């Protein structure tokens, strides 16, 4: 039997992007260890901040600082992380509502063990040592000390 033909191709789009006034401000905030949300006309603070209110379409521009601690509102436990996951050991993906926010953001919680996870648990941010303007400048959340 003949050998299978293997074709290897790497697709890349090596451009950099300007993130705009809201996403850009949020990611710049993470560099300074600050979590920013954005206030809707109804007074709710959305985190992560969006340029438009997804329910009304209103343009939004009032950034407000939230956190730094937050509350886990739901979670799942990942026993075997993939290479694309933010942690290389078992962790939780969770919805975390930072203090002062009305919505939750998806991120990792480094709890060490599933036994330390619960809905309603308090968490604090762990910051990336060398920020690179990505969402994982907030490296992950960890149980609040």
């Amino acid at each position, binding site marked *: 039997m003949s050998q299978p033909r293997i074709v290897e191709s790497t697709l890349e789009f090596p451009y950099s992007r300007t993130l705009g006034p809201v996403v850009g401000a949020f990611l710049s905030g993470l560099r300074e260890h600050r979590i920013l949300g954005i206030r809707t006309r109804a007074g709710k603070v959305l985190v992560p901040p969006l340029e438009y209110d997804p329910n009304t379409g209103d343009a939004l521009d009032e950034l407000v600082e939230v956190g730094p601690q937050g509350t886990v509102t*739901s979670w799942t436990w990942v026993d075997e992380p993939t290479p694309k996951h933010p942690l290389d050991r078992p962790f939780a993906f969770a919805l975390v509502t930072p203090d002062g926010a009305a919505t939750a953001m998806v991120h990792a919680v480094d709890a060490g063990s599933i036994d330390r996870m619960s809905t309603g648990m308090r968490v604090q941010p762990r910051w990336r040592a060398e920020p690179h303007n990505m969402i994982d400048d907030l490296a992950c959340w960890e149980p609040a000390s």
Partner: protein
Amino acid sequence: MAATDIAVVGYAQTPSTRRARESEVQLLVPIVTEALQRAGLDRREVGFTCAGSCDYLTGGPFAFVSNLEAAGAWPPISESHVEMDGAWAMYEAWVRLQHGDIDTALVFGSGKSSPSKPEEMWAQQLDPYYLAPLGVDPASLAGIQARALLDAGKATERDFANVVVRSRRNAKDNPNAQVAGDFSVDELLAEPYVRAPLRKHDLPPISDGAVAVVLARGDRARALCKRPAWIRGLDHRIEVHQPGMRDLTTSTSTALAARKAGYDGGPLDVIELSSTFSPQELILRDALGVDADANVNPSGGPLAANPVMATGLVRIVEVARRIVEGSASRGLAHATGGQVLQHNLVCLMEGD
């Protein structure tokens, strides 16, 4: 007011397999031919062709173009493509038919997950700044959704396992299914978690497969099919993208799509739901308000076979086939796109 004289008059699907040897277009060629033959339609008579597939699965930009070989694009044809489940390709064809200048359309959906790493690839459909860089995989989001359902007291892990037991039992009668058999709730609950509170069987299988549908309107539909499956209503609605900005334990977009499709809560002989993860069947049943003893996913549903980009259109075929064959008079099919039921389509069908 949307037209109600458009019907499914032909269909065919491949069996769902873990790893098909054929390329995507090779999967499509025989079923496109079979669907057209079933309708007794020559491919040169097709007024419009629309396909649903995902270039990310193939890993090449414009990979979908080669799938057109299955339709035969010479002499030139009128066609379109959606980077969505084939159910949305059918939606486009249904809208196109309402222009009134053509009376037949060919639709297909296809996906080969086997060459890719689905758990890594699907993170790319998410917000590129807040979610995709974290590699958030569909099963993790479904796990978060499942936990929310448990925390809200709306379901138990036993309820999740019950969905799986029924799906796999139903799939025994479906020659196209990939996972079928008799299992007990207790043996399933003894399995380890992969995304607690979800176990492997709460997740869909990784599948390769394809499906094709022929639509026709009015007298043409009656001429091509003895008992056409009339599309009485077809609608799709979407919710906010960020998973933390909506209630994951409900599906307001499904409820709205069903209402807009004209579903009045009346009896349904068959319901096929794109409940890709077991807890989602409970959410969708609740959103649609179907009875506890309703005939949901007699095919086994996506937990028995999940050829992505075809899964939703397969639901439509499973309902249409039962109407065409006469074992059902009224049915509802549901398709979903995005993450954790973000985008939902409802198709209400009836026989004469």
